């Protein structure tokens, strides 16, 4: 199987040739850390690139693929500088061991953080191969060139393929500052190319976590606390045990995030690190699922039996009346004074709901714990983080844990935390067998962790000429930092929560500006969800920008262009959007175009929604999108990610939400947590800005401006301002 590398495979690769050139880089990714790998001497290295005698190139890919395209993007960086064709490179996922450094796909960071290190690794190997060839021909390296895995003597036209040079090259010093190609020299980066994972995804052969099967493997289905947090007072399993194929009904647990994993005897209301759970372990998954219904559990709700999202939003609205903990780095001028001096003052409060990630592949993991050896097969966003968590949880050494990263059937942030893997580990240890845990869709929708629902309270001041003088955004709600890393956010602004609206992301030149955060306890675990806080913040901010424009009788595009006049990339994106959407063309009555723009994860995206009044609601006629993500590695994949964000973001705006009453999640599956289907997606046109800037993120930046662009269009078409998501498009 191409996507997994077991320790065994790795050793086989390493030993099939006496001469293997392998280079790596440290977790810091610095060039100086590149070392030569000499397996015969057993020198410890960080092997990312292996070339064997036949010229075969293997890349260890440290960024799990959940659909965003890292399976191609990272090898492409290497292949470009190494000068081999991508189709000649074998891709293996890294196994979580520390020598590979960070292995997390998250925060739309994969290409951004590996843009230089991966290319440097490729270029260094290429220079060593060229030097080896030059030595043999007794010419200068400058008399040699490379082409698709071959070194060419420019004087004689003689050639060596890389495999023939590997032994000699492996004895050469590693260049610490190899010359990287200029943009104009790229042969593969930025050129149309097909993703190498696609064929396996159309013939059913791609292996996801769900597809892993081991000899002697048992299947587990879990009974979680209906209140998410909970302790088992007692449980009755006799009937379940009589179901054919059931081996065990066991008490297990669910851990939240990365620890500390407190002793299970007491529940710490502050860190909320563990809940009890019951597992049914059987010879087949169906037997486990069936028997689960026969188990009765008496739960202690630990004080969460009455928690409700309605209560939470009331608290957040109350918090919004206070000034909150200020983001000092975002402060411009004196907001209060500037507001006082304004001719017109407006304020508005926006609400965004809790959301479930609901990737198509529910959480699942297969783990085999054998004494102090642990092997995992799972769809996880970060095998290195998983190794750390498992080491802490099981009390084993990190180097005894090996993670086989499969393809991820979607993740959107959910699979960067590993509660489901820990359950499989706990059950494998209890049963002495490899155990595959499969969450049901109901587990997925009802158990969180969720995107925090937020209350954004905005205030702005405008002068009589329509100039914005003062701007304030108060964020009120749950803290992901508090939830995931147990940080105390009662008196501090969550440092992540300003995404999309902080000064770096939102360079609107307001003379006075203030951002703040007030923490409200969600009474449930919250987590990053595609585009994280930018998904909630930008809805409020970009909607309010239009409210200010209308208050000051300015065109929304013109107001933005004016306030962004010192940020040329924003201006270029807006101008391109206006051009492709025919923004200036007057629409007929009942038809309107609304826009929004945001920077997040180092890329700028603007959308225009054209909507038409339709009965009591509106119909989306067309969506136009422009993205500036710096140098576009694969334009087609960037377009695909913008389309993907449109569908995901629109689902969140007009379809679904997570709500809780009496401590329980109200939704359970795709009938009541509805998502967009074929036939509900408006036509969209995506333009990717040509650029030679450093690459930015691609997987998430398309999402934040979706909802505000739609709602701004709706206001222009109907006069109605939507300030709470989700809403029904057919009844505004």
């Amino acid at each position: 199987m191409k996507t997994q590398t077991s320790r065994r495979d790795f050793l086989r690769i390493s030993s099939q040739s006496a001469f293997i050139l392998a280079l790596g880089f440290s977790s810091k990714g610095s060039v100086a850390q590149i070392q030569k790998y000499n397996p015969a001497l057993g020198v410890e290295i960080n092997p990312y690139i292996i070339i064997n005698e036949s010229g075969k190139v293997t890349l260890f890919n440290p960024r799990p693929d959940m659909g965003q395209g890292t399976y191609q993007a990272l090898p492409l960086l290497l292949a470009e500088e190494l000068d081999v064709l991508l189709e000649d490179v074998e891709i293996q996922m890294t196994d979580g061991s520390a020598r590979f450094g960070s292995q997390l796909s998250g925060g739309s960071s994969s290409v951004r953080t590996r843009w230089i290190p991966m290319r440097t690794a490729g270029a260094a190997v290429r220079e060593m191969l060229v030097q080896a060839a030059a030595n043999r021909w007794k010419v200068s390296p400058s008399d040699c060139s490379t082409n698709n895995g071959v070194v060419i003597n420019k004087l004689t036209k003689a050639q060596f393929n890389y495999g023939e040079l590997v032994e000699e090259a492996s004895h050469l010093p590693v260049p610490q500052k190899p010359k990287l190609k200029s943009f104009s020299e790229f042969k593969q980066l930025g050129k149309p190319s097909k993703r190498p994972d696609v064929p396996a995804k159309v013939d059913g052969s791609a292996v996801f976590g769900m597809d892993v099967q081991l000899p002697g493997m048992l299947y587990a289905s879990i009974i979680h606390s209906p209140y998410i947090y909970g302790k088992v007072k007692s449980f009755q399993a006799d009937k379940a045990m009589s179901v054919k194929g059931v081996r065990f009904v066991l008490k297990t647990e669910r851990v939240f995030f990365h620890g500390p994993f407190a002793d299970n005897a007491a529940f710490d209301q502050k860190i909320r690190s563990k809940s009890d759970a019951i597992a049914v372990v059987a010879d087949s998954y169906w037997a486990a699922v069936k028997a689960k219904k026969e188990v009765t559990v008496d739960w202690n709700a630990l004080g969460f039996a009455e928690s409700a999202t309605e209560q939470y939003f009331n608290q957040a609205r109350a918090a919004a009346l206070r000034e909150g903990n200020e983001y000092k780095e975002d402060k411009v001028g004196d907001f209060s004074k500037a507001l006082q001096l304004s001719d017109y003052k407006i304020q508005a409060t926006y609400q965004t709901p809790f959301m479930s990630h609901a990737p198509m592949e529910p959480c699942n993991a297969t783990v085999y714990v054998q004494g102090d050896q642990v092997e995992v097969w799972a769809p996880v966003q970060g095998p290195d983080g998983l190794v750390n968590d498992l080491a802490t949880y099981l009390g084993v050494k990190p180097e005894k844990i090996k993670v086989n990263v499969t393809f991820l059937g979607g993740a959107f942030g959910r699979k960067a935390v590993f509660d489901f893997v820990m359950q499989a580990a706990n059950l494998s240890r209890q049963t002495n067998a490899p155990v595959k845990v499969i969450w049901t869709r109901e587990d997925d929708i009802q158990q969180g962790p969720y995107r925090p629902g937020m209350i954004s309270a905005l205030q702005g001041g405008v002068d009589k000429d329509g100039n914005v003088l003062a701007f304030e955004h108060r964020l009120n709600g749950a803290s992901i930092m508090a939830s995931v890393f147990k940080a105390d956010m009662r008196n501090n602004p969550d440092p992540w929560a300003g995404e999309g609206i902080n000064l770096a992301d939102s360079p609107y030149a307001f003379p006075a500006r203030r951002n703040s955060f007030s923490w409200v306890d969600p009474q449930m675990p919250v987590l990053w969800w595609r585009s994280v806080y930018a998904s909630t913040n930008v809805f409020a901010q970009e909607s309010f920008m239009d409210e200010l424009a209308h208050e000051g009788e300015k065109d929304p595009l013109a107001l933005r262009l004016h306030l962004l006049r010192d940020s040329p990339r924003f201006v270029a994106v807006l101008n391109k959007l206006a051009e492709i959407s025919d923004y200036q063309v007057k629409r007929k009555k009942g038809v309107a175009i609304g826009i929004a723009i945001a920077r997040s994860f180092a890329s700028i995206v603007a959308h225009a929604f054209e909507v038409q009044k339709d009965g009591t609601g509106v119909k989306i006629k067309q969506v136009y999108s422009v993205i500036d993500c710096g140098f576009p590695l694969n334009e087609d994949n960037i377009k695909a990610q913008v389309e993907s964000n449109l569908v995901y973001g629109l689902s969140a705006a007009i379809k679904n939400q997570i709500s809780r009453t009496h401590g329980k999640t109200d939704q359970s599956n795709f009938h009541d947590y509805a998502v967009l289907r074929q036939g509900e997606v408006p036509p969209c046109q995506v333009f990717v800005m040509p650029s030679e800037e450093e690459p930015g993120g691609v997987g998430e930046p398309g999402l934040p401006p979706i909802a505000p662009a739609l709602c701004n269009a709706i206001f222009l078409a109907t006069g109605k301002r939507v300030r709470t998501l989700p809403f029904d498009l057919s009844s505004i």
Partner: protein
Amino acid sequence: MSIYQLNVNKKKHRVEVDSDTPLLWVIRDTIGYTGTKFGCGMGLCGACTVLLNGSPIRSCSTPVSTLKPTDKITTIEGLSEKATHPVQEAWIEAQVPQCGYCQSGQILAASALLASNANPSDDDIDAAMAGNICRCGTYPRMRQAIHAAAKKIQNAKKS
């Protein structure tokens, strides 16, 4: 436990499972075709779609006992040799899949649509594909690929 005779991808399989076992788990865990996926367990998402005598069904809510030995079941692995079905080729051409998890079901649903409707309109596509969710949002590309596959099939017939 009972013994059932199933015809999956033109091969006969004899399986011993409980009568209420959904076809999905028989295909995946007993027979070993893992291209068919589990998504919701309630027939709501279409990830488990297979063809029963050419028509798409949700295998997660089809008990194995309801199937006859003469029924022909097709999974993604049996749709073509080496991904050469026009729908699969169009899928690669349009670079449809992202995470890929729902795609087996999507491709089978699309192939069934084209088998009964050589030139589907956008409305036909909406109706035929409404049962298959894609969280990555590959819907626009699937629409484009279905139209392309239809053209490909028509051209192949003409020549």
